[in-house]
């Protein structure tokens, strides 16, 4: 009997590891930027190129930075979620139009609606590199001190809003 016990235990442990592995998302790379100040930038605004925006302007407010592009397919998926969130006026969403032509970006927002307070243009993707962007869309929650508190990779869903983002925003706004 004990002859079979050890292989059986090894098999169960191995199967357990493999089963957990099936549920993990290999695309979800933990960001080293959580808990660090949001990288500074000064970029021209999409709808008013003469005006700049910089994360420093947002000191004292909890805000979300959403990286999007008109060429990004998954952005279409999250767009209605962001539109609804913007209408609820809970937290301001700022957009980073990543590696996009300004006219394409503007057209995309004109067609689908604009959930952003404003968007800035990162035409060459340099600010994206500073933020560790590797797959659009990505969303950052930034606190009143300008520290990145959460990063969501991939389209924001109602579930991720309810479970993670909104409770965190509420908590940060109280501080």
């Amino acid at each position: 009997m004990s002859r079979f016990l050890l292989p059986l235990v090894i098999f169960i442990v191995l199967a357990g590891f493999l089963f957990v592995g099936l549920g993990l998302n290999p695309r979800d790379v933990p960001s080293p930027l959580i808990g660090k100040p949001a990288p500074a930038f000064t970029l021209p605004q999409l709808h008013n190129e003469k005006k700049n925006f910089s994360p420093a302007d947002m000191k004292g407010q909890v805000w979300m930075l959403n990286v999007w592009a008109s060429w990004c397919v998954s952005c279409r998926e999250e767009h209605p979620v962001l539109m609804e969130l913007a209408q609820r006026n809970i937290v301001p969403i700022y957009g980073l139009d990543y590696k996009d032509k300004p006219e394409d970006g503007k057209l995309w927002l004109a067609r689908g609606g604009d959930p952003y307070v404003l968007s800035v243009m990162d035409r060459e993707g340099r600010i994206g590199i500073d933020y560790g962007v590797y797959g659009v869309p990505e969303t950052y929650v930034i606190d009143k001190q300008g520290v990145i508190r959460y990063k969501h990779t991939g389209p924001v869903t109602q579930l991720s809003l309810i479970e993670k983002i909104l409770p965190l925003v509420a908590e940060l706004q109280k501080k």
Partner: protein
Amino acid sequence: MKKLFILMLCMLPTFAMAGEAQDMAADPVLEKRMIGLAEKLRCLVCQNESLASSHADLAEDLRREVRELMQKGMSDQEILDYLVARYGDFVLYEPPMKSYTMLLWFGPFALLFVAGLGLVMQLRKRRETVPEANLTPEAHQRAAALLNEEDKS
């Protein structure tokens, strides 16, 4: 004099080529260094490709970034630190030695050790259960004869 002129004419194309090559790759030495470093880095879009071999948009941007950092005079290690600060240890193909990567680095050796230990124990146990046969000289001879017979057939 004529010979010298012909020789000079023959050498002209080599100058032309050198000029052209310089235009195409701004600095071949830097390009080689960049590719060497990019081979140690993972492309985050196609995760099983190195930054050097990937054609993803982001990989091209990151190669440009590495090239520019090298032009600024940053060392290879400084550039690796720069990328790790943005993309995490995941960007390195070789995981760094840290408390939570100990299992990854030494786990296989631990498994090998345990397996070796098991093998030694098993062999010892077998030696105990299969006793040495104490044969009389005659029995030994008979056994040898039987074995020889089998060899011939």
